[in-house]
């Protein structure tokens, strides 16, 4: 197990090199450049050339890339181009914290409610409860954020002004309620559907009948046998969810005015702020890699067959 863990972790730098290379190359060969975006209506070829030289953008691609890698290894993500002279890490950190808090709470609520609803729906298959859960989940999932967000705001910030119309005051403030609710819908819907499907499949299996036959209480059958086996496909989704904790949600952030990663990354893309773009990409890559690693390890615990393989 330990050897497996180490082997997996050793792959991480390789993955990061690949990701950073692709991002860097896309930036280098893609249209427009950060200097033109920075200069805006003050563009002048001479100034642009001088700045490009100062930033090292006039060097050959590989030289730039290797220099960048050298800095990354020392955990120096460079300075933003748009936010002049500001270290990328310093710009990213506050936004990352906001995004992680928001996503973690939303995921937690989503997973908890999703799994519970999924189990309930599966046990009451075909009954009214099941139908309400399934249709509710589909309905919630089908409404895009840019529709649901403004509607919620309209209801709770304008019609009955009990919640602030946006902004960010920390996760324990009223301003976090609506965005957390909206963000929880995604994981809730997926987990509810998957749990229900997994439970239904498992509940028909022989070993469930065996467990019942030997007189096990229904509660024990559900938790000890059914849920555990239904959990395996859920783990994969959970891995993605863990990876997505650092990912910003541009629409939700824009609608509610939350200073998170989504808006920041979008803005960086618009301004071709490559040091920021690459840092964000690497961060997300690391998060997904670790999320998947967690899943693989967890599989081993849940399913002994995988552990031995």
């Amino acid at each position, binding site marked *: 197990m330990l050897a497996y863990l180490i082997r997996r972790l050793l792959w991480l730098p390789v993955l990061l090199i690949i990701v950073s290379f692709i991002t860097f190359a896309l930036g280098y060969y893609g*249209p*427009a*450049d950060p200097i*033109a*975006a920075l200069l*805006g209506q*003050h*563009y002048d070829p*001479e*100034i642009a050339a*001088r700045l490009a030289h*100062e930033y090292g953008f006039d060097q050959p691609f590989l030289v730039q890339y290797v220099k960048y890698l050298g800095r990354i290894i020392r955990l120096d993500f460079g300075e933003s181009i748009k*936010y*002049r*002279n*500001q*270290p990328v890490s310093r*710009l990213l950190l*506050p*936004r990352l*914290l*906001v995004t*992680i*808090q928001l996503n*973690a709470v939303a995921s*937690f609520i989503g997973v908890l409610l999703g799994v519970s609803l999924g189990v309930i729906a599966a046990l009451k298959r075909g009954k009214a409860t099941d139908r309400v859960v399934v249709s509710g989940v589909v309905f919630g999932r089908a409404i895009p954020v*840019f529709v649901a967000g*403004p509607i919620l705001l*309209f209801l709770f910030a*304008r019609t009955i*002004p009990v919640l*602030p*119309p*946006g*902004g*960010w*005051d*920390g*996760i324990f403030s009223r*301003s976090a309620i609506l965005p957390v609710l909206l963000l929880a819908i995604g994981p809730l819907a997926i987990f509810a559907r998957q749990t229900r499907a997994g439970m239904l499949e498992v509940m028909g299996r022989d070993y469930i009948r065996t467990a019942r036959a030997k007189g096990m209480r229904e509660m024990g059958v559900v*938790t*000890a*046998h059914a*849920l*555990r086996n239904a959990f395996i496909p859920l783990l994969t989704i959970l891995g993605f969810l*863990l990876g997505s*904790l650092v990912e910003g949600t541009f629409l939700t952030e*824009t*609608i*509610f*005015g*939350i*200073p998170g990663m989504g*808006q*920041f990354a979008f*803005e960086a893309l*618009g301004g071709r702020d490559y040091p920021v773009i690459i840092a964000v990409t690497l961060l997300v890559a690391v998060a997904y890699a670790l999320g998947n690693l967690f899943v693989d390890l*967890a599989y081993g*615990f*849940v399913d002994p067959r995988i552990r031995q393989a």
Partner: protein
Amino acid sequence: MSKDSRWIPLIAVVLLVCLGAICVLGVVGGTSFLGRLTGTEEATSPEGGARSSEPDAAPQAATPEAAESPEDEAEEAPPPAPSADGQVLTVPGGDPPTLDPHLSGDATSAEYVVEIFSGLVTFDRDLNIVPDLAESWEVSDDGTVYTFHLREDARFHNGKPVRAQDFKWSIERACDFRTRSITADTYLGDVIGCRDRLRDNADEVEGVQVIDDHTLEITIDQPRVYFLSTLTYPTAYVLDQENVERGGRTWTDNPNGTGPFELAEFRFGEIIALERNEDYYREPMPQLERIDFVLTGGSRMVMYEQGELDMTPVGLNDIERVTDPTNPLSEELNSIDSMGIFYIGLNNNQPPFDDEKVRQAFNHALDRQRIIDVVYKETVPVAWGIVPPSMPDYENPDLKPLEYDPDKALELIAESKYGDVSEFPDITFHVLGAGGATGRIIEAIVASYEENLGVQVDVQQTDWATFLGDLNRTENPNQMWGGEAGWIADYPDPHDFLDILFRCDSTQNHTGYCNPEVDELLDQAAVEYDEEKREALYRQVEQTVVEEAAWVPLFFGVDDWLIKPYVKDAYLPPMVIPKYQYYSVEP
């Protein structure tokens, strides 16, 4: 089997604990980080980015707010609860790319920089140049040597007196290529030695000499009528050497400026708070004790109506509701001409726009008055000329515009070297956009050309950075561009429009329009000190440029703001200049 089942609760617990731990970590970290924010101010839309930081984004149209205003239909607002207690003003703001005056080149940064720092001269409310840190000045007879006498009572925020040496150091820093200023060439390039230093050929800027502690001499390369106005720009502001050198790359965390307000608090994406400089040196003395710029987004119209903001810009989606006289909000609406023009650029070097007659036809074929009245709900003026009406000391009442006349347009095309629209190559109209629906103005333009000329214009959207990058290439690849993009003044002088945009070799002349006679007139105007003669020369240039149809001018920018009645003496300048020292709040 029983062995296996032991795992289930364990795994469930582990997973939940993991998620829980992340929550707790995030929350603990976050609250310690954000805990300082205890105020009630919450949000405003991220418009700063879309509108003010990009000088060319269309007024009203470009606000992201437009996409998220469900409150449009609602007519009445909840009773406003004044958020102003004492002399605190709460306004929406954008994240500034920098607070370093020498590095700023965008409106968002300048908004804060002009309040925290100051320079030798500045603009008053009517955009006249008035003394700031310089009490008075003399200009030599040949118009190249400016001697500034500095105020003796002016101090940095930390109490240190402002001396001529500080100006010399500051200008040399701005002109140092390592500072990476993007505006030093434009605003200080006329000072002898600045360009040399920018090109790394000089340790000193020769043209700036310290005569004594309070006398500074600046020499420029040749007489330039507009020189003083370039010194109003933040690139020419004074900085405290010790502050900059001690603070390193991020010295702007604790800027020691000279302006009417001091930076009290700054958290990216959340808030910038400015507090009054109690020792400010000049009238008008700032009245406001504190200005809170709310940087987080959200629907600022709702926030304004709930009294969480004292002012807010109005987006295109709200303008009709707000201008409706039956809406009480209409009494709080303030509109100000911003010094900007929006236009369709025509590439004078590319067919079919390499023929003047075709360009004129494209002007005549557009019913600008109707289109703009409909799209912008009669809130913006049609641009028949080039120079905005808000330009001080300039008007051109006799300008003969290319008016709507579709028959004449067809005649002109018949007379052109193409003879008929069927001989035109394909025409592509490059507009700003990210793949969504194009603005209504773009649709109206395309439909007009099809209807009146029978010309099919293809629209291609490009994002901001690509759009700019293309325009700035040596050979502008765009045939036709703009619509919701335009030009906003850097300084209030016709020079900033007519010379910068239409001189043959100007880097900002993206059309390739070139008329040596126009250049000749521009040269004369640049050194003409007689106001009237100068204005006459620029009128002539404007008339020629309009006639020869380098562009299709569309409309002049207007900013619409809602301002609470208890905010007194609110002043909305047509460009970014110090303004909050005029404001006060009624308790």
